[in-house]
């Protein structure tokens, strides 16, 4: 039994871990609760006699289902899983049990695919899948081959294993290892290892947040060698999330005495592809070795060891590819089989085969126990890392052709790019030259430390707690404090914010490529939260606009009423002719102008008009007209303004957009080009033709690269440019498209006697106030420019968004936007008001009162 002082020490460490999880909001809210449960449970478990501990662990694991899912869904999870476990112990022969399990799996798969409605929450599917999709095979393997007698506690503890309930991606723990290692060895040392690995997991997850929020480069933003290198590096580094979660899981299991294998040990420092495969997800590797590799090898070895090795390795990688799609099915409900996945697994498998053959012939170069820096090892390790980065970028790409096209950016570089990449490589070589993972019996290869491991872990935990308190960091470095604050909440990066609100013209179904953040958001949406494009209010057009709002329609959109008037505006019915004395303000913009998720009386035009009348004492009649349409780009607004808005004779035209306006402009142009539609202006036509992207609209098969299309035409095969290549070419002129739009919009407004205003704003968020080039472009074009991205600052952001899963402003959020817009227009004397507020901030305060 654990000594009192040791127990106190572990509990102290657990308290610090809980604080860090709370400060950084890591994994999920339910994970904090489950860790709290595990911490309290640990104090009891460590004091229990050994014979009761497995029963206690099983009870706690089952209790965690209710903690994470509530009683009803937790009970459903227990019933479904309990049913599968019961099948394993039916009094029938082994083959019949396997058959019964396959049948039960098929029924569950049909339900997962939505064949029938189920009474439980869809959110339990990924967890049920992660608990049973692979572990059932290992359990059945153990029942057949192991001598360990199965018990109910072992079965429940193994399948509902704490903290699986919080992790859809969970290590495939081997049943035989799970039972064999329970309290094998010194308990105090086991607990200390658990705490240390959980700390490692937290560090990985915080680093992941830093990479995700501050390093990731969207493929559409890759313009040169520097951004290409950043994209490729960050794609691989995003895997820190998985390694962090696995460390947390395995560390927590150590607190209950399960001495499982160490996972993801220094995997970025693998010196070969076989080394990488052995280090990264050791649970998956062991699972494949046990159920696929060794059985294949033993079957094949009569043909010679080399042939058996090659054959078995190929089978392992093909099975891994297939099983990843199978895993995806249980986690997300679809079964992606993509060229990129296939290429990734085939290439990685091929590299591992070549490495394995080399090792089989020459012996594995382990540099046993060597602590000196080795140039050969450094080069090998860095080369392995670089190849894996490249492979990972292929795996994460939307398509192979998009990935190929990315590399054209490598031809554009400057001295700064080369210098930064060179410095990174030098640092990588310096670190990688030491053999950090050489197996050694005497521990001679360990890094010397001035502190004992327990103290080292505790100091690191305390340091993280202090670093996680921005108020303490602020006096030392305000930038550091801001950086820490930025990773203390789970939020989406810019790329995912765009994906979250993908446009109707995004033709590719890339759900499988959505990041975890977007997927989590999408997965929690109710079924009736459908895009506007799937409603009766959406009208597809065969012209430059591509789509607009269907006139005179009334629908429910995002659970709120939405009325479209006879002019195709999300507004009340109005007359085209402006009555004498009326001051008209036209609002153009995407969803936050149209009003997504708010009722007809909760839109920005409604609140702005209400405010104008209140401030003017009703001395002037204001009409604020809403021309906002979901996901409209600036290029569409050009035609919208000319054809629809100006006939209403507005006095002020406010064009609103957010910082990603160039992306939507590019996407809209792609849709226009793909449909082969004429462009409305010679300047725009010249701009597009200079990129060559107009070839997207040609008849024929999509063939990448100019040389490929020329070759195809030589054989009289009609060819067009693929979507991704056109996208890559157009994104280089994204800012030019914005510039063209701004000039046309400002000129059109002025010719019609209206004052053009450009407002930079967004859906609910902290407000990233970094400079956006388009603001200068708008100013040069003749717009009065308003930057109101920080409109929501100082408010409780959650209270301003329409739903937990959707950050469009609700009525309160829209009112905040309207008031800020009013204040900015008033401050610039753009409103005919009798008494004007002195400043925007005063208005803001008054409103809050």
């Amino acid at each position: 039994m654990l000594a009192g002082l040791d127990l106190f020490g572990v509990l102290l460490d657990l308290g610090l871990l809980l604080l860090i999880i709370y400060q950084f909001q890591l994994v999920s809210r339910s994970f904090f609760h489950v860790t709290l449960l595990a911490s309290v449970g640990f104090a009891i478990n460590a004091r229990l006699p050994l014979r009761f501990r497995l029963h206690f662990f099983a009870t706690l694991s089952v209790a965690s289902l209710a903690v994470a899912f509530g009683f009803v869904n937790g009970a459903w999870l227990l019933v479904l899983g309990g049913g599968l476990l019961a099948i394993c112990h039916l009094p029938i022969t082994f083959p019949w049990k396997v058959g019964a399990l396959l049948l039960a799996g098929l029924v569950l798969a049909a339900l997962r695919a939505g064949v029938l409605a189920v009474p439980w929450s869809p959110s339990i599917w990924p967890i049920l899948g992660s608990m049973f999709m692979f572990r059932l095979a290992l359990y059945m393997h153990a029942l057949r081959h192991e001598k360990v007698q199965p018990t109910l506690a072992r079965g429940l503890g193994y399948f509902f294993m704490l903290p699986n309930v919080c992790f859809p991606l969970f290590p495939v723990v081997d049943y035989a290892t799970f039972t064999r290692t329970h309290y094998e060895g010194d308990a105090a040392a086991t607990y200390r290892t658990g705490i240390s690995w959980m700390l490692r997991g937290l560090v990985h997850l915080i680093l992941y947040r830093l990479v995700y929020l501050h390093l990731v480069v969207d493929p559409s933003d890759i313009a040169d060698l520097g951004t290409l290198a950043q994209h490729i590096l960050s794609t691989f580094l995003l895997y820190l999330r998985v390694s962090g979660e696995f460390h947390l899981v395995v560390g927590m299991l150590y607190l209950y005495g399960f001495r499982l294998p160490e996972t993801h040990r220094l995997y970025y420092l693998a010196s070969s592809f076989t080394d990488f495969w052995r280090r990264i997800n050791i649970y998956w590797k062991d699972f494949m070795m046990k159920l696929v590799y060794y059985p294949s090898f033993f079957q094949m070895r009569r043909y010679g060891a080399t042939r058996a090795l090659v054959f078995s390795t190929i089978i392992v990688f093909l099975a891994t590819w297939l099983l990843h799609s199978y895993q995806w099915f249980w986690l997300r409900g679809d079964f992606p089989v993509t060229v990129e996945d296939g290429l990734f697994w085939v290439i990685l498998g091929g590299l591992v085969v070549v490495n394995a053959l080399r090792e089989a012939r020459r012996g594995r170069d382990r540099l046993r126990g060597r602590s000196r820096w080795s140039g050969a090892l450094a080069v090998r390790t860095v080369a392995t890392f670089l190849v894996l980065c490249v492979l990972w970028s292929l795996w994460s790409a939307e398509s192979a052709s998009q990935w190929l096209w990315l590399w054209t950016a490598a031809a554009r570089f400057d001295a700064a790019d080369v210098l930064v990449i060179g410095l990174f490589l030098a640092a990588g070589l310096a670190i990688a030259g030491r053999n950090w993972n050489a197996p050694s019996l005497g521990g001679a290869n360990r890094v010397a430390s001035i502190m004992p491991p327990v103290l080292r872990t505790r100091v690191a935990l305390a340091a993280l707690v202090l670093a996680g308190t921005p108020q303490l960091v602020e006096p030392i470095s305000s930038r550091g404090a801001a950086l820490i604050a930025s990773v203390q909440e789970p939020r989406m990066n810019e790329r995912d914010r765009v994906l979250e609100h993908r446009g109707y013209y995004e033709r590719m179904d890339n759900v499988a490529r959505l990041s975890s953040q977007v997927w989590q958001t999408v997965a929690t949406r109710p079924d009736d939260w459908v895009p506007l494009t799937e409603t009766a209010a959406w009208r597809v057009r065969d012209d430059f606009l591509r789509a607009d709002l269907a006139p005179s329609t009334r629908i429910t959109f995002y659970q709120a009423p939405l009325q479209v008037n006879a002019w195709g505006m999300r507004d009340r019915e109005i007359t085209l002719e402006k009555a004498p004395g009326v001051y008209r303000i036209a609002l153009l913009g995407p969803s936050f102008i149209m009003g997504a998720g708010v009722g007809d009386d909760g839109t920005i035009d409604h609140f702005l008009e209400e405010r104008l009348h209140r401030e003017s004492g009703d001395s002037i009649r204001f009409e604020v007209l809403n021309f906002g349409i979901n996901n409209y780009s600036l290029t569409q607004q050009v035609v919208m303004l000319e054809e629809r808005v100006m006939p209403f004779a507005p006095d002020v035209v406010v064009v609103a957009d957010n910082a990603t306006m160039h992306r939507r402009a590019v996407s809209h142009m792609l849709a226009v080009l793909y449909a082969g539609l004429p462009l409305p202006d010679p300047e725009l036509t010249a701009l597009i033709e200079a990129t060559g992207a107009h070839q997207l609209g040609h008849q024929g098969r999509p063939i990448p690269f100019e040389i490929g299309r020329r070759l195809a035409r030589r054989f009289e095969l009609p060819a067009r440019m693929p979507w991704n290549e056109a996208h890559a070419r157009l994104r280089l002129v994204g800012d030019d498209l914005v510039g063209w739009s701004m000039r046309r919009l400002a000129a059109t407004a002025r010719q019609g006697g209206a004052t053009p205003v450009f407002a930079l704003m967004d859906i609910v968020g902290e407000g990233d106030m970094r400079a956006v080039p388009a603001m200068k472009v708008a100013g040069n074009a003749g717009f009065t420019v308003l930057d109101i991205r920080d409109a929501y600052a100082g408010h409780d952001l959650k209270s301003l968004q329409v739903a937990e899963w959707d950050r469009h402003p609700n009525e309160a959020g829209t009112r905040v936007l309207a008031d800020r817009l009013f204040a900015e227009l008033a401050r610039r004397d753009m409103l005919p008001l009798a008494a004007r507020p002195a400043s925007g901030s005063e208005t803001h305060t008054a409103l809050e009162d």
Partner: protein
Amino acid sequence: MRDEVVETVRQYIIDTYLPGEDPRALGPSTELISSGILDSLATLDLVSYLEGRFNIELDAHEVDTASLGTLDRIAQLVETKLDAG
């Protein structure tokens, strides 16, 4: 018999995978697979060695930590096979 097997396999592992290490540091319960001393290829080589040296035949499901994870477990496996044979 068991001690003899432990000693034979210990020497094989030291010679093949840990040259230069002190044989006394490789104890009967030292973890061979989870510590990284034996990787998958080395484990298969060990299987071939055991089959050749002791004239036994192993099954695929016996190639795991539970059977080959330590010198003790290897000796127990060999003993069982020899007794059965």
